[in-house]
């Protein structure tokens, strides 16, 4: 594959257009070992989520706290080697934090941060940050932006549209059924219920990869 692409590049006078054409049309580019096998970094997760949900990035202090909790203290890697990335982003703590931060992004509530998440030594700085945090607001998601009236027409359409938006692929059948059941149990479906479904979709192993 590499050799073939290199040859292509050379044959076309180092022109990138035919090179990318060949790359994107290759079977390897879409092989199961490659597609959806990359763990989203915390930054990818946060920015990708607010883009997909057409909402705003939370205020700097909130975003910073979230990223620190998720293991990526931006501009302050743990050492000169940087972050290891890949599956090392995921442990039991960071995974649950992703699930809970999803709620914050979707519902527009403050994430469950504590003074420790901001502190180095001593409680001073952490407490200051916590006080500042109480004055901030997270935007939240508006259902009109992410679903058209037709897409809202029934539960299947809702799940299908959200799936497309968040995964660009299907969840597993059982997972889809779980989400259907969740929505079906609501006699009068509110925006809040739909947003909870969005949060649930983000609270899956599948949402952590791209």
């Amino acid at each position, binding site marked *: 594959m590499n050799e073939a692409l290199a040859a292509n590049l050379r044959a076309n006078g180092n022109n990138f257009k035919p090179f990318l054409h060949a790359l994107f049309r290759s079977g390897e580019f879409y092989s199961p070992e490659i597609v959806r096998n990359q763990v989203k970094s915390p930054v990818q997760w946060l920015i990708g989520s607010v883009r997909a949900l057409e909402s705003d990035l939370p205020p700097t202090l909130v975003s910073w706290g979230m990223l620190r909790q998720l293991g990526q203290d931006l501009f302050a890697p743990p050492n000169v080697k940087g972050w290891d990335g890949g599956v090392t982003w*995921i442990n039991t703590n960071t995974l649950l934090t992703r699930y809970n931060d999803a709620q914050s992004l979707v519902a527009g509530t403050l994430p469950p941060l504590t003074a420790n998440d901001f502190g180095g030594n001593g409680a001073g700085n952490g407490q200051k940050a916590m006080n500042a945090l109480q004055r901030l607001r997270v935007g939240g998601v508006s259902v009109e932006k992410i679903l058209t009236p037709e897409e809202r027409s029934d539960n299947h359409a809702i799940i299908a549209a959200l799936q497309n938006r968040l995964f660009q692929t299907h969840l597993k059948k059982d*997972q889809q059924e779980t989400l259907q059941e*969740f929505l079906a149990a609501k006699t009068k479906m509110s925006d809040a219920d739909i947003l909870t479904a969005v949060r649930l979709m983000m609270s*899956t*192993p599948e949402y*952590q990869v791209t």
Partner: protein
Amino acid sequence: MKNEITLHTRREFLRRTVLGSALAWTVPAFLADTFSALQAQAAESATQTVTGKDATILVVLQMAGGNDGLNTVVPYANDFYRRARPKIGLQAGDILKLNDEVGLHGALTGFKELYDGGQLSVVQGVGYPNPNRSHFRSTEIWQTASDSERVEKYGWLGRYFDNACGGADPAVGVTIGSQLPEAFFAAKQKGICFNNPQNYRFIANGNAAEESYRKLNELESSGPGMTPDEGAGEMLNSGGSIGQLPAGMPMTGGRAIDFISRTALDAQHSSDEIRGVAARVQNQADYPASPLAGSLKLVARLIGGGLPTRVYYVSQGGYDTHTNQLPTQQRLLQDLGNSLKAFVADLRAQGNLQRVLVMTFSEFGRRVSENANGGTDHGAAAPMFLVGHQVKAGLLGKYPSLAPQDLFQGDVKYNVDFRSVYAGVLEHWLQTKSLPILGRQFPPLAVV
């Protein structure tokens, strides 16, 4: 694979049932096939099936940043020491004497009490050959128990989990903190971490959402064929590979989604367990108000609640004292000594002190000579502390010579390889063979 179900011993029966239920609980279906392989492995290996009531427990305490060993266990009577440290050298009046040659830093009153009570041992001059003065690299060496020139993929405690705790509860290793230390990195059984038990859960808006979350995260993984990567990129230590596993044991290999699915199950199981325990058990001692004390308070509650955890990991940062060392180290050591003293009192009140051993480490000591800023720079060997009811109390090992001709590039030379301390802890305390975990047979230090 033989399909025999005949049980020969009671031990075997226990192992099968405990392993079986733990697996059913925590392991996605893609692993179910390896269940019988795990059984076979358990039958002949050192797999430990223990409960939260009787097993010994190790608490590892990292003093991050490189603690100055010379001003912690102070050779107050040594002329070379006083010459090398005209400004920050501690005098006989500043310290808590242990004998005619050395004494503890004056802030370590908590340690002195433990020492006098026969609950503290000081391992002097611990290090390793060809010491590295980079925080990052030296920490990695301590975390993976590797030789200075080799890079290992898994941590020494992770290899302990893999080798001796197969199929155990995910909480077999618990780190108080937001990130898993490299020491926990493992092929199969990597332990869990959290910093706040209240937030260590899926915070649900409503029961229906909670129930759906559980279902969404309980489903089996649907990844295509797993490709085990055991051995791939793993370097061999002289004398054999560290923590080598039987071929065909998938865990870190294969697709990211499978790894995350398993982590999701571990998270779900352990968060229920831990929140329950943390809410139920109270501390029974007065701790200082510090992040370290907070971590130890939590560990004491988890031990009291009977978690089946074998290794807890806590850390205290700030030891990188390049400038104005005296007040910083004073504060840190005082916190360390008082926190551990309270921890011991708490465990004694619970009746669990006999089961617990605390081991401290720091990535390196500091240079013998002070620098021009009233601090010290990165050095080599330093003391380790062991705290517990059953420790060989007193001074272990030999204090490194400070005579200029005995130094290597201005640093003290080690007398005890840190892996001998690890070997002693593994063999004498955790009751498992150290060879498969450390890759070589290091003479186990008699720690208890």
